[in-house]
């Protein structure tokens, strides 16, 4: 069996448009470009704050970071329109912010508080409402969100609505049969499904070359008969461009797109993972390729903002997160009485079965 090696170079391609052509991101206003900055930064700052809460034992269970990947998540979600739908997974916290969920919601989820979107019934980013926020609530089983997004796009087409459905999946998640069956359906039915395939080097401890035998996930797209492209996932505007184009293709009934974003998971699978399996120097080399640093440089270079302006936004974001965390921390744990609620639309089936034994001794 092949030896592990993850030192892949991030390719330089940015979009399908030729060098000479205008890129979709060229039409973004300075305001929009700064909004992109703001969400990306907020993702990072919020996760940092959550790590803090985790160390204080306020987070219940594990904590999963997207350090180094915040850009692709946010840019992809940002390229969608209001009516589109997005299905974020654990490392796509940023998409929830873009979609309008306040930081407190995520914090309350992580802290298992009653004020969180699932009232403490489910954890971390496992929430979402297709009607209010266009967000599809995921489950843990990797791959399953893909066919669900296909059904979302199918429903939109049936209703005559022009909406696309975007989800993210890790290199590891693309090994699942659910991913394959879902993508094949979307391919045959030419549905506007966009998948951001996050090639971040690892699935838990397993490097990408022990996960698949292809050297590019574009080949997986070819194998499905759909559009595929590999882009630099730490180049925020490149991700924006690729999703923008995928969206247009989808709405022209040209079918799904698989966008492989080359990026890197700089933290372990979860906070407890000590990353012993990571070769020396690998993390450091990717630190130099940080999406936020790069975007700051780009914004400054292209004159969208000065360093001082970006610093001001950073201050704002930090302040906002602090006040959000205050609200989250003030939320009490859920009331046990909700445990039996909402299993069905109809009343619970076996409300009474432990009741006789609940009286104190």
């Amino acid at each position: 069996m092949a030896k592990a090696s993850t030192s892949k170079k991030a390719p330089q391609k940015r979009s399908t448009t030729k060098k000479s052509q205008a890129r979709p991101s060229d039409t973004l206003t300075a305001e929009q470009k700064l909004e992109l900055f703001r969400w990306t930064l907020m993702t990072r700052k919020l996760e940092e704050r959550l790590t803090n809460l985790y160390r204080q034992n306020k987070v219940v269970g594990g904590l999963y970071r997207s350090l180094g990947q915040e850009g692709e998540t946010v840019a992809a979600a940002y390229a969608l329109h209001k009516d589109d739908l997005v299905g974020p997974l654990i490392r796509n916290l940023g998409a929830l912010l873009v979609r309008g969920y306040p930081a407190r919601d995520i914090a309350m989820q992580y802290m298992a508080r009653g004020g969180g979107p699932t009232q403490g019934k489910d954890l971390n980013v496992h929430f979402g409402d297709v009607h209010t926020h266009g967000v599809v609530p995921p489950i843990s089983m990797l791959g399953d969100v893909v066919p669900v997004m296909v059904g979302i796009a199918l429903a939109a087409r049936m209703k005559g609505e022009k909406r696309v459905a975007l989800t993210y999946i890790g290199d590891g998640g693309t090994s699942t049969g659910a991913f394959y069956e879902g993508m094949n359906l979307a391919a045959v039915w030419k549905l506007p499904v966009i998948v951001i395939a996050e090639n971040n080097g690892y699935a838990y401890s397993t490097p990408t070359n022990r996960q698949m035998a292809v050297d590019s996930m574009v080949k997986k797209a070819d194998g499905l008969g759909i559009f595929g492209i590999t882009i630099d996932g730490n180049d925020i505007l490149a991700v924006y461009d690729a999703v923008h184009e995928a969206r247009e293709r989808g709405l022209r009934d040209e079918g799904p797109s698989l966008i492989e974003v080359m990026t890197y998971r700089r933290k372990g699978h979860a906070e407890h993972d000590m990353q012993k399996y990571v070769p020396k120097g690998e993390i450091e080399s990717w630190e130099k390729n940080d999406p936020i640093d790069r975007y700051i440089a780009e914004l400054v270079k292209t004159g969208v903002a000065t360093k001082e302006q970006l610093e001001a936004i950073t201050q704002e974001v930090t302040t906002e997160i602090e006040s959000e965390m205050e609200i989250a921390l003030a939320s009490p744990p859920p009331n046990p009485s909700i445990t039996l609620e909402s299993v069905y639309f109809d009343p619970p089936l076996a409300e009474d079965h432990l009741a006789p034994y609940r009286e104190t001794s």
Partner: protein
Amino acid sequence: MSTVTYLEAIRDGLHEEMERDESVFLIGEDVATYGGAFGVTTGLKDSFGEERILDTPISEVGFTGAAIGAAMMGMRPVVEFQFLDFIACAFNIITNYAATTRYRTGNGVPMVMRGPMGGGVRGGPFHSQNPESFFFNTPGLKIVAPATAYDAKGLLKSSIRDNDPVIFLEHKYLYRRMKDDLPSGEILVPIGEGLVRKKGGDLSIITFGSMVHRSLEAADALEKEGIHAEVIDLRSLLPFDEALILESIKKTGKALIVHEATLTGGVGAEFAARISEKAFEYLDGPVTRVASLDTPVPYSPPLEDMFMPSTQIITNAARKLAHY
């Protein structure tokens, strides 16, 4: 009034619901052009077009997942499994996605999962299964199992209108063997309500699906011996009509549970457990179960006949219990 088979009743139910509600659609293998392996969906493509009757690639996770997504968006998908044995391939996405989403998020996933199940047709280990127990320990799901053409139609229509995921078990042995005169008006059988198919005071036979008919045959045979069995057709398994069961046991004092799935871990155990907990004071005899033998479903007629509960075996068990 018109006489329709169990199979036609399902087709009519689908037709009526698709006409009534634009959000209902059908998805599965070979359901459109071919009309389904058993012809349940014959003609629906002509009536509703390929936009609402969707032939899929062979991908049970794919199309069940697509149904879940569509249901989230307010559609009401009906998923056909070519044989219900293949629902096993979608076990994860059904129990983990479809079943939990309302609980977790408040938004439900209204969808029906249906297909031909059950034995007696020499289908062998992979085309004869009774999969109800696989899903019976998963809160958030509903399970129904009609025994007659009337209930097949009435329960299907209720299942499509239900706001949660329903597994609709069609017994393929009954497809063409059962017929009912159906009134022309709307038929709706509420989920969760059982029915006394035959009244009697000596013992209660609690059953559903194909075994309703064998149990009724057994009850008729016993009648001649002066033993009066009450036969309860549960119709719904999750939720099931506990009140109806308990009421009957309180009258007869004896419970015989009959199902076609294998014994150990079959849903009959739950009925027995409820009875022995909640009607303990009324019991005049051991709660008895008759079910298939604990083996895969064998193919060859003498083996499958040995495997499945026969009318004779049900009769013997009922007699023994009555004389207890």
